[in-house]
């Protein structure tokens, strides 16, 4: 089974039915899979903070949301994470492509990669790093944990995990 299909299967099994995405080359397969599933309302966002607003609304409306984005988005969304998602105590699984790690061809991506974990730690956001393909086995438990504790939770997925960029 492809990693993308396994990830989206886990979303569906955990009743995540509202997913917003901002694209990244590395996430193309998983975004396509979200679009293909009838159980999921896939709503592309123009910017990640907008997506987090949509997710906050969907959660209050009774759906389990998730956001799929690139790690550069951490730089865009700190205010939203702190004053909306965390301040109102809302769950938000964030499936993040961890650009700028090993096998990265674009130098600029490394600039944000070196700040990604430090920023997430500063924000007290539980953070998981998928590096080997088998790490995906934890995804189901991470989703359960997210909706148990009502926090934003980051899942960083690097190029090695995705089988090279």
């Amino acid at each position: 089974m492809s990693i993308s299909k396994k990830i989206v299967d886990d979303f569906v099994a955990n009743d995540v039915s509202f997913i917003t995405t901002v694209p990244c080359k590395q996430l193309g397969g998983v975004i396509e899979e979200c679009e293909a599933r009838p159980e999921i309302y896939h709503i592309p966002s123009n910017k990640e903070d907008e997506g987090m607003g949509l997710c906050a609304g969907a959660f209050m409306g009774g759906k389990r949301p998730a956001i799929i984005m690139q790690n550069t988005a951490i730089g865009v969304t700190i205010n939203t994470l702190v004053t909306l998602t965390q301040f109102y105590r809302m769950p938000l699984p964030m499936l993040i492509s961890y650009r700028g790690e090993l096998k990265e061809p674009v130098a600029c991506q490394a600039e944000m990669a070196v700040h990604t974990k430090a920023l997430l730690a500063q924000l007290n956001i539980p953070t998981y790093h998928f590096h080997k393909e088998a790490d995906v086995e934890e995804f189901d438990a991470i989703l359960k944990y997210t909706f148990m504790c009502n926090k934003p939770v980051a899942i960083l997925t690097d190029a090695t995990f995705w089988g090279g960029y």
Partner: protein
Amino acid sequence: MIRSEILREIAPILRPHLVVCNIGLPSQELHSIDDQPTNFYMLGTMGLASSIGLGVALAQDKTVISIDGDGSILTNMGTLPTIANNVADNFILLIVDNGSYGSTGDQPTYAGKLTSLTAVAKACGCENVVECQDVDTGKVLQEAIDSKKMTIIVCKCDSGNIKLPVITRDPVNIRDRFMEAVKA
């Protein structure tokens, strides 16, 4: 009319519906005029009232009205294409367009100069966009609710604020109370 006068006039129309209210003075004004469990007050995060409201509308069937401002729409302009392309007929976006950043001291916005949010919303693909004058807001809002069609209302009004205390209700309480009202 200034925003607080408009909110006072439309409060009875808003009361039975879910309302997502913009950060700062709009939320403080609505909170003091007619606090309801169906009101979600934004205490931070400028720009996201329309996104939050659309999310609520897409997730359930009750009518949702987002009360936004011209400054906040300019902050999150990407919201309009998302709204246009994800039609929720139980969603109304009411943009109180006073041409200024009210909560920060009425600095002028571009919407009060050359930029027409009505034209922007139409160009983004929103099908039902109504521009109205302050005095007609109640009538236009009621018509939009009754039409059961997603509608963007751009309400042109005067800038100006009244002095009000900040909202001290705990955010988790605001959110929980709102979610109970959604389910009721």
